[in-house]
């Protein structure tokens, strides 16, 4: 589904990622661990194609097509979706209008209301997008938008940060729906998930994980084993282990 080949990314004058290579197969979910400032979000933004993230070397292949220089909306329309960690507030634009836009004309009757009900966000439909939302509400708003959008490849930038214990299982269920994790054979959705705490791993059953440290990939393997390693030895342990 996704192949990232020797990707080098600059933001402004600063090189953030060096020679990153990774791949995500159809139906597979890959977890990205790493400390703050390690380049995880930069990788997601570069794959999404946000203009500030300048790819200076390497390429991004999606479903066999080189999308390295495609604009954001083209990538979205080809099936890539992203949960932003800190999405902007859009004053005046209502949640309902935003979801309608994400549905791209696939709106049937009360699709939006059903979706909001599922996300426990029914009373947010007439509120402005992300305006005054709590951390958990932002995540649920992002997930609603993604479920409406139905991307084949979903990138989640810290879907569990700021989500309280009551809502974490709700968020987990929404992610499972998005990634079709309840299906074994016919699963077509793929994911790339950033998590800091690993909390979300209690709810989604990820296939593989890697650690992004100082702009490069240091470790690849089983998500739970890597998380256990980070918990006992810190990220420095990953660097030492790889040497």
């Amino acid at each position, binding site marked *: 589904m996704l192949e990232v080949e020797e990707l080098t990314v600059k933001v402004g004058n600063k090189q953030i990622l060096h020679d990153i290579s990774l791949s995500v197969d159809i139906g597979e979910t890959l977890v990205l661990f790493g400390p703050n400032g390690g380049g995880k979000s930069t990788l997601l933004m570069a794959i*999404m194609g*946000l*203009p500030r993230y300048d790819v200076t070397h390497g390429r991004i292949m999606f479903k066999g097509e080189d999308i390295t220089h495609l*604009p*954001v*909306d083209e990538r*979205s*329309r080809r099936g890539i*979706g*992203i949960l*932003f960690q800190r*999405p*902007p507030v*859009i*004053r*005046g*634009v*209502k949640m309902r*209008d*935003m979801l309608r*836009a*994400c549905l*791209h004309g696939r709106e049937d009757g009360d699709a939006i209301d059903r979706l909001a009900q599922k996300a426990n966000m029914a009373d947010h439909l007439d509120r*402005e997008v992300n305006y005054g939302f709590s951390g958990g509400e932002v995540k649920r708003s992002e997930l609603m*938008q993604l479920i409406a*959008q139905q991307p084949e490849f979903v990138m989640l930038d810290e879907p569990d940060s700021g989500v309280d214990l009551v809502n974490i299982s709700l968020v987990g269920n929404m992610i499972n729906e998005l990634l079709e994790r309840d299906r074994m054979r016919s699963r077509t959705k793929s994911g790339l998930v950033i998590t800091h705490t690993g909390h979300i791993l209690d709810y989604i059953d990820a296939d593989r994980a890697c650690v992004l440290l100082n702009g490069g990939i240091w470790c690849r393997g089983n998500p739970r084993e890597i998380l256990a390693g980070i918990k006992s030895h810190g990220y420095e342990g990953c660097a030492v282990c790889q040497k």
Partner: protein
Amino acid sequence: MSKVMQSKTAKTKPLKSKAQPATPAIDVDLQAYTSEVEEHPYQKDPSRLSAADKQRMHDVGVVVDDTAQRAGTYLQVDQSVIHSKAEQEGVEVMGTPQALEKYPWLSDYWWKLVNPEADKFTQYANTHPFKGYFIRVAPKVKATYPVQSCLYIAKHGLAQNVHNLVIVEEGAELNIITGCTVAPVKDEGLHVGISEFFIKKGGKLTFTMIHNWAPRMAVRPRTGIVIEEGGVFLNNYICLKPVRTLQTYPTARLVGRNALARFNSVLMAAEGSHLDVGSRVLLEAKARAEIISRAITTGGTIIARGFMSGQVADAKGHLECRGLILGKKGNILAIPELEGTVAGVDLSHEAAVGKIAEEEIEYLMARGLTRDESVAVIIRGFLSVDIEGLPPELSAQIRQAVELSEQEVM
């Protein structure tokens, strides 16, 4: 959206003159217009007006084909009242000259909220033949449907002189839709409009005005409002079409406890348009007020004013002005002013002028919208001021006006 654009050349470019105003006022020469105009015939059945005229009226929220959902209708073309009719008991609709003749006591209301000597336009209004609507709703009567009025200019070069009077008696409720517009072929003209609104104890007036002028029109409304104890005044002003120069600055006095005034303005200025639009609120009692404006320029000038004066303790007010500059030209000057004359007033304001934040466009693009679609969604949201307590029909009217202009912006 709230990111303020800064000029890169601000530090290096010398100021031309310290005394130079940021946005020069536009003078209107009264001599350039005529008050002479032929009388238009009265229309008992306004649905018989021409399709073109009806369309112009419809665009400003005035429907004449089926007035079943209106509590009354007032239509003025140039200086002729061509139709006036009240459809609900307790609601009166007629021309002001007729009302002044019928009710001598109206002298207690006439020129009481606007000073006839305020400027040359009020002087003009006071010394020339006038028409205008008189709308009164009797005590405790709640009008089911809105009263609609249309002030229409058909003659080239006319100075239309209007003096309106609205009285909402104690405990009464009324919605008014006023559409001001010109005939399709209309070229040049001046509209002088005096309006005096009285909202008595516990009364409520929702006043929605849609202006749809023409690129060579000059418009000078002068409005005064007084709101008594527990009275509510909701003012919605929409001006999205080109106009050479428009200057309006209604003043609302809140004289009774728990009175409420809310001004919402949605403005758009194309190249060649100069809008000087604001609201002034005097909190003379423990009352509340809100002034909210949204301004978009695609090349014209907008001065968005707001003045709020808290004159007793616990008077509360908020002023909000947001402006968007789309395209390379255009100028928005936001002037929010707050005055407190005693301790204990609670007044606040926020103002922001800038362009659409790139981050917001990219956010929508990441959901699969093209750049143009993203900008359209953001602009539509920006212009959709939330108007609390507005009947759905009026909301629909405003939405329609905004949608009609959207394409021009894009």
